[in-house]
C-alpha cells in the first residue's frame, strides 16, 4: 500500500502532474475576486474566508477526474481490481496520496491568499486549520464522483457537477467555523467538530462507495 501511495505522489509531482496546476488555479481564482467586487479592504476581509474556501473547493475538484481515469486508460485499474486486498482500502490510499499531492499545497498556499484578502491573523489561522481538516472530505467525496464517471469519455466536468452538491455541507461548516473564530459571539468548536465529523464520515463512506462504483464500471 505504501508503494501505491508513493507512486501516486510521484506521479502528481512529476512533469505534467496536477500539483502545481491546482495551486495556480487556486491563486488565480482568488486573485480575480478583488477585480470583480472592487478593492474595498473591509469588504474583502469580510468575504475573504468564504472566497478562499470556495477557491480551494474548486481547485480541489480540478484534478479529481484523473484519479481513476488515468489508471483505467493504461490498464492498471484492471489489475488493481483483481487483487484480494479490499478495494476500499486501495481507494482510501489513493485518496490520501491525491490529498497529499494536490490538496496539501492548497492548504499551504491559503495563508498567502488570505493576506491578499486583508484577513487578520486569527482568520488566516482559522482558514488554514479548517481547510486542513475539511479538504480530505472533499477528496473522499470526489473519489466517489471520479469512480462513477471513470468510464465516461469526457467525465471531467461531470465529476465536478456530481461532487459539488455533496461538498456543500463541508463548505458550510468550514466557512462558518472560520467566521466563528473571528467574530466573537459564535463559538468556534461546534462547527469545527462537525467539520471534523464530516471528514471522518466521508473517509469511511467515500472509499466504500467509490469501490462499489469501480466494480460496476468494469467492462
Amino acid at each position: 500500500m505504501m508503494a501505491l501511495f508513493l507512486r501516486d505522489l510521484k506521479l502528481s509531482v512529476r512533469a505534467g502532474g496536477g500539483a502545481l496546476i491546482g495551486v495556480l488555479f487556486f491563486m488565480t481564482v482568488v486573485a480575480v475576486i478583488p477585480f470583480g467586487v472592487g478593492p474595498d479592504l473591509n469588504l474583502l476581509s469580510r468575504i475573504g474566508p468564504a472566497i478562499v474556501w470556495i477557491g480551494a473547493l474548486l481547485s480541489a475538484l480540478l484534478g479529481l477526474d484523473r484519479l481513476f481515469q488515468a489508471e483505467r486508460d493504461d490498464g492498471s485499474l484492471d489489475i488493481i481490481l483483481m487483487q484480494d486486498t479490499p478495494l476500499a482500502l486501495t481507494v482510501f490510499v489513493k485518496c490520501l496520496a491525491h490529498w497529499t499531492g494536490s490538496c496539501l499545497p492548497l492548504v499551504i498556499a491559503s495563508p498567502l491568499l488570505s493576506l491578499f484578502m486583508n484577513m487578520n491573523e486569527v482568520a488566516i489561522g482559522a482558514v488554514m486549520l479548517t481547510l486542513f481538516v475539511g479538504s480530505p472530505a472533499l477528496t473522499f467525496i470526489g473519489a466517489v464522483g471520479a469512480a462513477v464517471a471513470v468510464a465516461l469519455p469526457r467525465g471531467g466536468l461531470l465529476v465536478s457537477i456530481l461532487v459539488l452538491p455533496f461538498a456543500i455541507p463541508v463548505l458550510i461548516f468550514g466557512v462558518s467555523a472560520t467566521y466563528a473564530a473571528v467574530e466573537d459571539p459564535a463559538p468556534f468548536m461546534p462547527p469545527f467538530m462537525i467539520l471534523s465529523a464530516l471528514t471522518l464520515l466521508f473517509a469511511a463512506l467515500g472509499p466504500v462507495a467509490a469501490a462499489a462504483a469501480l466494480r460496476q464500471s468494469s467492462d
Partner: protein
Amino acid sequence: MGLNVENLAARRGDDLLFSQISFELKPGEALVLTGANGSGKSTLLRVVAGLLRPEAGHVSFVGAADGEARPAGEVSHYLGHRNAMKPELSVDENLSFWQDFLGDSDGGKGLSILEAAEEVGLGGITHLPFGYLSAGQQRRFALAKLLVAYRPIWILDEPTAALDAAADRMFARLVSGHLAAGGIVLAATHQPLGLDGVKELRMKGFAGTVQDIAA
C-alpha cells in the same frame, strides 16, 4: 487442483457471446483461445480474471497448499491490451511498484527487477522512463511484470501484439518456463505462439441472445 471453469456464459449488451464453456487446467497446462475478432476471446479472459460478471457458470482455482477454492482473479496475472505502466515513471519504478503492490501468491517467488529485465532481454535500460521506449520494448517490460511477482495463473490477452520474431521466441521461452514450474497459462491470440503441446479452444462467437439461456 488447478483452474476450473464450468458452464461459463457471458454477454455483451443483449447478445450472448458464448455459453456452456467448460474446461479444466491442471498445473503445467496451457490453453490458447483462437477465433475471429469479436468472437469473445477477450471477454472470456476478463470473466476468468473476475473483471466481468458471468451470465452463468463459475470460475474457481484450487491451490496446492490449502486445497480451498478461491476466485481465480486473485491468483492471476492479467495482461490486457494495455500495459498497465506509467509513461512518466522509469521502468524500474514501474516494476518495483507492481512488485510491492502485487506481492507473491502462495507457492512461488517473483524474480528481482534486474533478473526480470534480463529475462525479457532488456537488462540495461530499466532506468529509462517507460514513455521513452518503443511499443515492442514496452510490451516486453509488461511481460517482465509477470515475472516480478509470482502468480500461478497467467491470463494473457494478445500478448505478442507489437512483438517481433525474436521477442516471440523470448515469450515462448517465458511461457514454457512458467508451465514447467507448475503454472497455468490462458492466452488469447490470433497468431501461433510457438508453443508445443497446448490445448486450443476455438471461439465461434455469437451464441444466441440472452433469452436463449433463460429458456
